[in-house]
C-alpha cells in the first residue's frame, strides 16, 4: 500500500516536536496589524518547531496568517505590523533580539525565503546571472565577480535550468523558469532553512511537480530544512513531514502529514479535507465548510471556528480551546478532545 511507504519516509526523530535541539523554534508568537479600523490579531500564540532536514507545512486558507508568520521569522514585517509577543529561536539564538549585523548574516545565509509570486519580483533590467551573483557578492564580499558568475551558472544547473541561460533577462524565461531562478537565489548561500511561501501556486501542475521534485532532491542532497506554506492540502501532505493547520491566526491542529491526512481530528481540518475533490476513488458529494472565513477585526469569541462548526456545543462560543496533545505527537485545539 502506498501510504505505508509514506510513513516510513518520515524519520521518527523529526516528527516529535520535542526533538533534542530543533533548528527553528517558534514559541508563543503573536503579531498584530495596527490598522486605522482597529488592531488585527493576525497571529495569536503560535508555537511550532522544525528539526534538522525536516519539512514543516503551514496550511490554512487565505488570511489565516501564514505569510505573516513567515515574515515575522525573517524579521521583515513592516508597520503597521507589530510583534506583540513570543520568541523565534534559530539554532538557540533569538531572532527577535538580533541587531542589524546579526540579521544581515541571518537572512539568506542561515535562512532564505521564496516569496509568494516571487517570480514576478525579479529585476527586469538585470540578467538572471547578475541577480544571483549579486546576492553572493553582497554576503560574501571576498568573492570575485567571475567566481560569483560561475557559481550562478552552477546554481542554475542545480535548479534544472541550462547554465547557458545565465545571461538571459527574466522576460526571456517562462514563469516556471523564473520561479526556478528565485529558488536558485534562495539556495545561493547554502541556507540551513528555506521558507517557501506558495512557491508554485501560480504555475501549472506539470511545472509545479517538476519544481517540487527538484526541491525534494536538493533537500536530500544539501540537507536543509523547509517551512512550506501553501493552501493546497494535497501538495502539502505529499511534500511535508509535519503539518500545522491554521485558522484565523491560530494553529488548531498539528501532527505528521500521514496522520493528518488519514485521521484529521479538528473539525476545521476535517472540513478542509472534505473540500478537495479526489482524482481517484469513489466520487462522493463534498460538503466543504459552510459560511466564510472570519473578519479578523472582530474575530469570533471562544473557539474562532465556532460559527462555522457543525460540531459546536455549549462551551465553544465561551471558552477558547488550547492546543493539547490528544494522541502521541498529535496536537488539537478543540473542546471535543
Amino acid at each position, binding site marked *: 500500500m*502506498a*501510504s505505508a*511507504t*509514506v510513513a516510513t*519516509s518520515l524519520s521518527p526523530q523529526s516528527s516529535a516536536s520535542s526533538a533534542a535541539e530543533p533548528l527553528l523554534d517558534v514559541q508563543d508568537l503573536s503579531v498584530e496589524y495596527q490598522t486605522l479600523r482597529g488592531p488585527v490579531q493576525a497571529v495569536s500564540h503560535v508555537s511550532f518547531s522544525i528539526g534538522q532536514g525536516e519539512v514543516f507545512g503551514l496550511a490554512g*486558507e*487565505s488570511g489565516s496568517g501564514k505569510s505573516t508568520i513567515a515574515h515575522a521569522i525573517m524579521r521583515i514585517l513592516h508597520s503597521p505590523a507589530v510583534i506583540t509577543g513570543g520568541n523565534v529561536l534559530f539554532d538557540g539564538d533569538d531572532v527577535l533580539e538580533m541587531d542589524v549585523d546579526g540579521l544581515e548574516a541571518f537572512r539568506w545565509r542561515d535562512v532564505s525565503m521564496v516569496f509568494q509570486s516571487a517570480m514576478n519580483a525579479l529585476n527586469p533590467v538585470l540578467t538572471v546571472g547578475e541577480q544571483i551573483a549579486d546576492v553572493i557578492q553582497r554576503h560574501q564580499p571576498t568573492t570575485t565577480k567571475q567566481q560569483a558568475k560561475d557559481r550562478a551558472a552552477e546554481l542554475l544547473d542545480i535548479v534544472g535550468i541550462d547554465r547557458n541561460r545565465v545571461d538571459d533577462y527574466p522576460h526571456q524565461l*517562462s*514563469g*516556471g*523558469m523564473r520561479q526556478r531562478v528565485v529558488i536558485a537565489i534562495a539556495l545561493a548561500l547554502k541556507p540551513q532553512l528555506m521558507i517557501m511561501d506558495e512557491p508554485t501556486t501560480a504555475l*501549472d*501542475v*506539470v*511545472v*509545479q*511537480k*517538476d519544481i*517540487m*521534485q527538484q526541491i*525534494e*532532491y536538493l533537500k536530500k542532497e544539501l540537507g536543509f530544512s523547509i517551512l512550506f506554506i501553501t*493552501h*493546497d*492540502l*494535497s*501538495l502539502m*501532505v*505529499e*511534500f511535508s513531514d509535519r503539518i500545522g493547520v491554521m485558522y484565523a491566526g491560530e494553529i488548531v491542529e498539528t501532527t505528521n*502529514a500521514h496522520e493528518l*491526512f488519514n485521521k484529521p481530528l479538528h473539525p476545521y481540518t476535517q*472540513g*478542509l479535507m*472534505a*473540500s*478537495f*475533490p*479526489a*482524482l*481517484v476513488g469513489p*466520487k462522493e*458529494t*463534498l*460538503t*466543504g*465548510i*459552510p459560511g*466564510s*472565513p472570519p473578519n479578523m477585526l472582530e474575530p469570533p469569541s471562544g473557539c474562532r471556528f465556532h460559527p462555522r462548526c457543525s460540531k459546536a456545543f455549549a462551551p465553544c462560543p465561551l471558552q477558547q480551546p488550547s492546543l493539547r496533545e490528544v494522541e502521541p505527537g498529535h496536537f488539537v485545539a478543540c473542546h471535543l478532545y
Partner: protein
Amino acid sequence: MTKTVLTAEQWKLAESPDPVVLEVRNLTKHFPVGGLFRSKHVHALTNVSFAIRRGEVLAVVGESGSGKSTTARLIARLMEPTSGEILFRGQNVLQTEKRGASLSYRSGVQMIFQDPFGSMNPTHSVAHHIMRPLQIHHKVERRSDLLPRVHELLATVGLNPPADIANKYPHELSGGQRQRVAIARALAVDPEIVLADEPISMLDVSIRIGVLNLMAKLKKEIGIGYLYITHDIASARYFADRIMVLYAGQMMEGADSDELIGNPAHPYTKLLLSAVPNPEIALGQREVVARGEPPSLIDPPPGCPFAARCPQVMDVCRKVMPEVQTIAPNHWVRCHLYGEGSGGTAA
C-alpha cells in the same frame, strides 16, 4: 492545414435524449502579432469542435496558454473567431448575427469570470447588479416585480437573507458571496448555457466546493449546460460529465470524465494526470513521465505540438499533425499512436 470536424454526432452521450444547445465547429483564433506588419500569428486556438447538450457539463482542461479562455471568449462573442462556426440551437450565429450577438443569444449564453471582484462595479449595490439584466432583457412585466425577483435569485444561489444581501455593496461581501452574486446575475436572464472560466480558482479553498455544488444544483434543477474551464482536473472530474483536454490550442483528447481519468490515452493527458498532487503517493516515489515547458504558439511548425516533450515521439509526429480518432465509445484522441496504420495500441 489539418481539417478535422468533430460533430456532436461523433462525440455525444449515446443514450442522452437531451438536445444539443451549443455546438462549435472548427473554431479557430489566430492573433496577429509582432512588428509593424503584424506578419506573425499566435495560434491561440485551432479547429476546436464540440457540442454541449441541455443540462450537461463539458470541462475544458489544459495548462496556462492552451486556449481555454479564448474558447469561452469566442463563444461569448467578446471577440470574433478567425474561422469556424458557432451554432446555438442549430443556428449559425456568426452568419445570422454578423454585427454582434443578438439580445436572445446574449441571454441564452452567459459567462462567469474567474475574478468576482473585477466583474462587479464597486459603486452599485448587489440589487442593482441583478436588476440591470432583468430590465435589459425584459425578464419581468412590472417594475414592482423587479425586487422580488432579485430576492428570489439571491435565495436560489444560497445568499440569505436575500433582502439584506441585496442592499450590500461588493466590498461588503466575501469572495464566495461575490461569485454567487455573479452566478445570480447570470441566472437572471434564464441562460441555457453558462460559460464558467475558472469560477472557483480565486476563492478560498473551504468555499470552492459550495460554489461547484451550487452550479451542479442549477444544472440538475434548471437544466443549465456548462462549459467549465479549469486547470484543476480533479474539480473537472467532480463537476463535469465530459472532459476535453487542450494543448497549444489543439483538442488532444476527450471522453466521459471517468473514462478520461481512468483510461487516459494521450501522452499529454497522462503527463497532466501524473502531475496532480496525490497525498497517497510520496512525491519522490512517483515516476517522471515527461518534463519541459509548453511550445511557442507563434507560427508553430507542422506536426504534433506535444512532440518536443513527448516520451513516445516518432518521426511522423514532427511532420504530420495527427487526426482525431475515436478509440472507444465517446472517447477520442489526437495522437499518432492510435488509429489505422499507426502500429500503436489503444490503452
